């Protein structure tokens, strides 16, 4: 197995772990963490393709990963803010109990 294939397989496994967390956890904060894991898997793909790609001097993979990390940080801040606001209304972060959109 070539090194790129190993990194891509690892990234696919990381993505699947994040997806499993998003689909199975009850706590909304852990669902958000699962989304972060999926974004991290995409970042690992960017860096691996940059490293083993034909033109690493162009730095595009690194740039995309840096911007993606910035977007993910903004998403985490806003998502946790929304979870806090929802908790203040409903007194729970359990996604199986949050089944109504009316506050």
């Amino acid at each position: 197995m070539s090194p790129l294939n190993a990194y891509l397989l690892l990234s696919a496994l990381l993505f699947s772990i994040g997806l499993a967390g998003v689909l199975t956890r009850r706590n909304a904060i852990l669902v958000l963490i699962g989304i972060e894991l999926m974004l991290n898997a995409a970042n690992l793909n960017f860096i691996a393709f940059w490293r083993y790609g034909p033109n690493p001097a162009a730095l595009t993979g690194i740039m995309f990963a840096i911007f993606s990390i910035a977007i993910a940080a903004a998403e985490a801040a806003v998502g946790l803010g929304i979870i806090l606001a929802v908790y203040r209304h409903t007194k729970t972060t359990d996604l199986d109990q949050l089944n109504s959109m009316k506050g």
Partner: protein
Amino acid sequence: MTLFFLIAAALTIVGTAAAMSLRNPIHCILSLTLGLVGLAVLYLQLGAQFVGFTQVLVYVGAVAILAVFAIMMTRSAGSPQQPAFSRSWLSGSAVAVVVFAVLAWAISSALPSTKIVPPQPAVSVNQIGDALMHKFALPLEIIGLLLTAALIGAVIVAMPERRETP
């Protein structure tokens, strides 16, 4: 495929899998930091030092602390009587396994498995800063705007809302 890669990959997978399967949310965040440190080690091994240190700063430093704060403020740490997984956990994990199977099949069948490894590209922080200031200046400005908007938006969303009584 070196021993170093295997150790870092095992650290990442064990940490993130524990983060998604443990019962106590605080334990989940702690093992998540372990997995993210493993991912940062992988970035360092791939030659992307700046991204690796950014990963440690942003994820291990900021996002994990933010998540711990959110867990403590929502008091979701001390509820052991509730199940940690939702009612549809079986179909959810089945979907995740199917997604991994499809991705693994695509990866193993699409790429020619050549063992030619290009030499490690040397990228200094100087070069990255130069590219950010010249070639990627507009995306950098847009990211700055977006981060400012997200900061203000997160504060406004999380602020206790005041009911105005006429």
